[in-house]
């Protein structure tokens, strides 16, 4: 079922190795075609052609500056103001990289969580509820319900249920990050983009966060940028390896870590990089 698109001459390792993920249970939700990202004249990302399968976790790995974050942020057009994104981003059959796409509506379906927890200077409750209110959900019981489910899904409910009206700024790093996840899933997105969500967290919080993500997978399609290769190995089904603004290898996570096809990938995952 994997359609390999290796570009290589027999006997040597291929220069690129990209597979097609997904199956009947996990159809493709999001894919990029011929994606190029420019910062000014500088091309930060080229040939970023990837497909993402539903209810799976895909990890994007690679060295700093390899373009993985740029790629991720382009997916829900968070880079619109600072970069030029060319190519197509197909979301369930619709190219969302068209100028007349309503980015706000689109971002409600493709949510994002950032590297550093960024809870708003509001109460825990309002952090989650206020975006819903702006979208017309004002009934108190409905809001309460969504807040609770989101917090439960983010595995934060038990810790904060008694202090929902406390300022979110008082939360610890791990809690704050989970609040950000709860906030993102409260608007019921389809795809969840995570940009190194654990890099600012301690090991315990990190592992809690990973558990949470594994549970969230049932409901969402998750794409996560990570520096931490063990993390990628622990939670993701697929892994894409970025190098110098290109995707060099995309395969199942186990393949990438046990049997990488491209030399650079092999060097990177084995720690011989650079």
């Amino acid at each position, binding site marked *: 079922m994997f359609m390999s698109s290796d570009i290589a001459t027999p006997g040597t390792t291929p220069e690129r190795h990209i597979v097609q993920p997904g199956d009947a249970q996990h159809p493709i939700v999001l894919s990029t075609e011929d994606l190029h990202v420019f910062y000014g004249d500088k091309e930060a990302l080229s040939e970023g052609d990837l497909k993402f399968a539903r209810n799976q976790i895909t990890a994007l790995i690679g060295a700093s500056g390899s373009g993985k974050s740029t790629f991720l942020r382009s997916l829900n057009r968070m880079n619109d103001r600072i970069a030029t994104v060319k190519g197509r981003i197909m979301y369930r059959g619709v190219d969302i990289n068209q100028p007349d796409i*309503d980015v706000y509506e689109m971002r409600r379906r493709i949510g994002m969580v950032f590297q550093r927890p960024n809870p708003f200077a509001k109460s825990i409750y309002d952090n989650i509820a206020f975006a819903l209110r702006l979208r017309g959900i004002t009934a108190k019981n409905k809001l309460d319900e969504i807040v609770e489910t989101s917090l439960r899904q983010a595995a934060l409910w038990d810790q904060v249920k008694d202090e929902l009206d406390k300022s979110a700024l008082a939360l610890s790093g791990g809690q704050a990050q989970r609040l950000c996840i709860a906030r993102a899933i409260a608007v019921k997105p389809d795809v969840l983009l995570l940009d190194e969500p654990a890099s600012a967290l301690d090991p315990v919080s990190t592992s809690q966060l990973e558990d949470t993500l594994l549970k969230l997978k049932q409901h969402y399609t998750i794409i996560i940028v990570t520096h931490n290769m063990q993390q990628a190995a622990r939670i993701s089904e697929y892994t894409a390896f970025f190098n110098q603004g290109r995707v060099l290898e995309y395969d199942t996570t186990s393949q990438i870590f046990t049997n990488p096809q491209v030399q650079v990938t092999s060097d990177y995952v084995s720690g011989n990089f650079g």
Partner: protein
Amino acid sequence: MTKSPEQLEQELKRRSKAAKLEIWGRVVSFSALILIVAVVVAIIGFVASKGLATFTTNHVNLWDFLSGKNWNPSLTDAHGKPEVGALSMIVGSFLITVLSAIVATPFAIGTAVFMNEISPNRGAKILQPVTELLVGIPSVVYGFIGLSVVVPFTRSVFGGSGFGILSGTCVLFVMILPTVTSMSADALRAVPRYYREASLALGATQWQTIYKVVLRAATPGLMTAVVFGMARAFGEALAVQMVIGNAALMPQSLVDPAATLTSVLTTGIGNTVMGSLQNNALWSLALVLLLMSLVFNLIIRLIGRKGRLQ
């Protein structure tokens, strides 16, 4: 979840409430900006048109204006030209601005360092409110305190009339102190905490950390604060006017009466007739002020750019 792509595309292309709000917000905030720009353009245009009239309608030589030392617009000199030499006032303005900045800088930065690095608690509780309070004291009041305290003091210490650049410097020093202090504090606050931690971890004392790390890192911000204070000082009118003596003479010493652009402008503007040479000449002074604040601004910007490059 089983929507056809067409259906989905339609949904995604429908303009959402957020998009509508966004347009509304852009329009509203842009109109506010346009309004301010209109105000700025109107005032600058107004000053420029009046100030340039001295040279266009009254045919004063620009160089005579900038280099002449005699300010007596109602009189004409030996050649039948009006005496509108602004040099003494330009020099006066510069002297008083630079001096007050020189005096205020160590105090302001010292206070900012104290507020930010040494005793943030006391800084926030005492210093900040006090400096903010000081900004609110009207310049008239500063002027009168200058008149009743500073001027007699300089007179008894340095002789002369007490009026002059020195007294003006003292008053301006206190007036720009709060501005420079609070801006310096902002600049220090912008230095990331790990700079300090890294330095302290290397065994540096607090002072070494402040001096070698924090102040260095904040230098562009601090310079901006000082230049901003200078711009303030340059444009201050009422308070300076009361203590500098308003004598349009080249300053011979710090305790002789002198004049600044603003003091002559404020003193004379009500006594001249709109459209006359005397009035236009005063507007030319305002134009010089405008250009000077442009220069100060460019300096601030240059410093800012340098800071970013570092």
